[in-house]
């Protein structure tokens, strides 16, 4: 069940929220009825998409919960605690390796040694990369004594399975929500803000991401040579916008629902397409993932503190893993290494020179890198990737410019323009300007935004009812 769907929006979410608000925190001696409601709905949510693999999630969380308890009970020294940490990480990584990477490994091995091995053909459990990373953060933080042990398994399961962030992030660490998990205030203003945030995410997903996504699908379907250079670039730009709006819309909806439930999830995107360097981009794109790798892999490996050689090695490892995290396919690895290389180049070669260039040029440089990068990201078939790149370079026997490009521009101009504007921090800028203005203007703006919300909501529902293209892009993560 995707958030941007009729069953979720009109049935699952309202039912869940009503029940959630009705039940008290405490009744009889049960500590948190609200958590139980949340858990119940989260399990239904996950089982809806993965009726069988839900057992896997229950297993992974049970392992980490038990490890946590054992670590606290028997881990009198850091050395002993490490045993339980290794155990937890090993189980999580094995689950991930088996269900996500086994076939990839089999295909690679059989390719290299040309032995015909049969793939396992297991379906990928939705959200596996997100929830294994979350539970690992708990074990590691507990080992580091940065979080207290979770005593109650159901609370722990509530944390991991929490439906707003279960299948598409942000990767919420236990340390971030541990207090709210046990005690939180649900404030009217925050519920309201959460609702607005959720709606903004919904509008972004349905009215922008799905639309530019449809454009990308149309261009992608063209045969090589049919797409002019301009069209190929338009397609790559459309996919970039699709991925950004889709992914950040999911995060908006997750953060919004979190607020409605009384949780504060971390921000996951900070206008990454307005960045002015690759380093800047990765501080703004999928923040919860890059900080996860930073805190649990890069820094433990020594980060940049042990000489250039070690630094480069560490970057190689982290960016190889970051790429691989996005999917069991070589193009994702290539995509990760591409960014690793660019970050190293910015750090050691042209970073200083880049800083002296005008902002607009730095911005153009970054956009070029991002758009090319997402082309690597989208084609898991290296042959198709090569063909698309040759279309972009005008080496597929295609023209520089064609009538089909005008057709796409005419059909998608409005949504592309809206997407381009919203990719920059225009909305928060306007908001902060208005907040400094007089009461009259602020009230008038509130009325306008009311009309805007209602109108966009109706149009969004119209698109959902007539649902021709509403993909879930993260099934490979």
């Amino acid at each position, binding site marked *: *069940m995707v958030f941007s769907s*009729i069953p979720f929006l009109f049935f699952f979410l309202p039912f869940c929220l009503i029940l959630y608000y009705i039940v008290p925190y405490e009744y009889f001696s049960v500590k948190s009825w609200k958590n139980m409601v949340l858990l119940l709905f989260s399990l239904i949510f996950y089982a809806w998409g993965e*009726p069988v693999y839900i057992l896997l999630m229950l297993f992974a969380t049970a392992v980490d919960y038990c490890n946590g308890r054992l670590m606290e009970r028997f881990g009198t020294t850091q050395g002993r605690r490490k045993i339980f940490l290794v155990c937890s990480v090993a189980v999580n990584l094995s689950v991930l390796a088996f269900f996500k990477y086994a076939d990839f490994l089999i295909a690679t091995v059989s390719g290299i040694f040309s032995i015909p091995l049969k793939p396992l053909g297991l379906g990928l459990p939705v959200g596996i990369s997100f929830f294994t990373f979350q539970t690992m953060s708990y074990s590691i933080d507990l080992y580091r004594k940065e979080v207290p042990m979770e005593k109650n398994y159901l609370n722990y399961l509530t944390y991991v399975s929490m439906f707003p962030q279960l299948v598409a992030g942000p990767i919420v660490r236990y340390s971030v929500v541990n207090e709210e998990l046990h005690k939180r205030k649900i404030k009217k203003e925050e519920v309201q803000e959460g609702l607005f945030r959720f709606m903004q995410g919904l509008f972004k997903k349905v009215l922008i991401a799905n639309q530019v996504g449809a454009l990308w699908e149309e261009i992608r379907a063209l045969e090589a040579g049919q797409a002019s250079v301009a069209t190929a670039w338009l397609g790559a730009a459309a996919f970039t916008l699709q991925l950004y709006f889709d992914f950040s819309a999911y995060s908006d909806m997750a953060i919004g629902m979190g607020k409605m439930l009384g949780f504060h999830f971390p921000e996951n995107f900070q206008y990454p397409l307005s960045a002015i360097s690759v380093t800047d981009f990765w501080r703004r794109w999928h923040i919860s993932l890059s900080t996860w790798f930073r805190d649990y892999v890069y820094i433990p490996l020594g980060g940049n503190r042990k000489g250039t050689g070690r630094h480069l090695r560490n970057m190689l490892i982290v960016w190889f893993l970051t790429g691989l995290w996005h999917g069991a396919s070589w193009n994702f690895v290539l995509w990760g290494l591409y960014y690793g290389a660019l970050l190293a180049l910015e750090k050691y070669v042209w970073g200083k020179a880049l800083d002296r260039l005008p902002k607009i040029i730095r911005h153009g440089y970054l956009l070029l890198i991002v758009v090319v990068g997402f082309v690597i990201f989208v084609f898991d078939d290296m042959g198709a990737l090569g063909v698309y790149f040759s279309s972009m370079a005008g080496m597929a026997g295609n023209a520089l410019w064609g*009538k089909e490009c005008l057709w796409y521009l005419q059909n998608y101009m409005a949504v592309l323009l809206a997407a381009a504007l919203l990719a920059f921090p225009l909305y928060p800028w306007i908001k902060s300007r208005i907040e400094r203005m007089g009461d009259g203007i602020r009230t008038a*703006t509130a009325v306008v935004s009311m009309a805007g*919300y209602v109108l966009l909501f109706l149009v969004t529902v119209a698109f959902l009812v007539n649902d021709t293209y509403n993909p879930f892009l993260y099934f490979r993560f």
Partner: protein
Amino acid sequence: MKKRPVWENRIKTATALLLAGMVMLLAVLFIAMDKKEFSENENRYLAEFPSVSLEKIKSGEYMSGLESYLADHFPFRDFFMGVKTKAEMSAGKREINGIYIAKDGYLIEEYEKPENTERIGKILGSFAKELEGQEVDVRLMLVPTAVCIYEEKLPEYAPVRDQMETAEIIYGISGIKPVDCSKDLLAYKAKGELYYKTDHHWTTLGAYAGYTAYCREKGMDAVSLEEMTAQTAAEDFRGTVYSKAGDYGREGDPITIYTNPADKLTVEYMDTGETTESLYNLEYAEEKDKYSLFLDNLHSLIEITNENADSGRKLVLIKDSYANSMVPFLVRHYKKIYVFDTRYYKQGVSEFIKEQPGVTDVLLLYNMNTLDSDLGIRGVY
């Protein structure tokens, strides 16, 4: 930051309540409202409530069934579909759900990339081979659709795929003698509308143009329209492309039908056992899918006898719905026409031809737009 003005807060709260209220209202209406079984507008049966079973839950089939049920029975579904189209059109889209918003009030279905050209050619060729040695004259007529004939009406820069190129490939592979009516259709453009503005079929005039092409190829004298009696069977036909595009509020098309006073017909629907004297079932003129009035919509086999035909020849017509509006012209020339819809007729048409004495002609007629996905083709051979 300054303190928020009281009214701003109130309006924000009202906005949140309004949004939450709309969600709840639509959910309640969904539960309370009567569910339609059939969508007139989309001309299809809507999804049924899925039945529960452990297997279906394990495979996820139950959940996806429930999701289509919810989407299909959503309150004010038609209204919302219209809103979507209006929103897309005002954002500059000129192609919606595979329909071009064309000039002169036309809605024209796009021609999707054909995937099965070779396979279709081979199936048709195998069928023709089956008939080798029989005394029958086999013809293949692949009819271009509006997207080809009315190319100039398409929105500016619209991509066009050449239908006749695909048709040529199929003619070539199948080895059957072609009847190319594209030039005749182009020549008839000045005489009136050849395709419905709101449906994917050709009009009766379009069918007549196709008929003249067939007569020319066969060396027969086409009956002129003046010799026939014209009648307007329906005024406001809003067909399939109208529904697909969802741009409601457009005017419908008239449907004209022709009868030749000289013919004396018996029309037997072999699957239902009904017999009439007319090629039309005007009850359909009152319904949404008015094109069905030609030859009573779908039948696996129809046997048409014309006692006053100008020859004793017998025709086997294997076709899709495009032929239904051409049959009224063809009956003049054949004592008997056997009309097959191979989506439903499964016993093998070539067997039928071999067993039925006196079949002299075979015409295979399909439109180019649905040919590629036509399941009936597989029933030909």
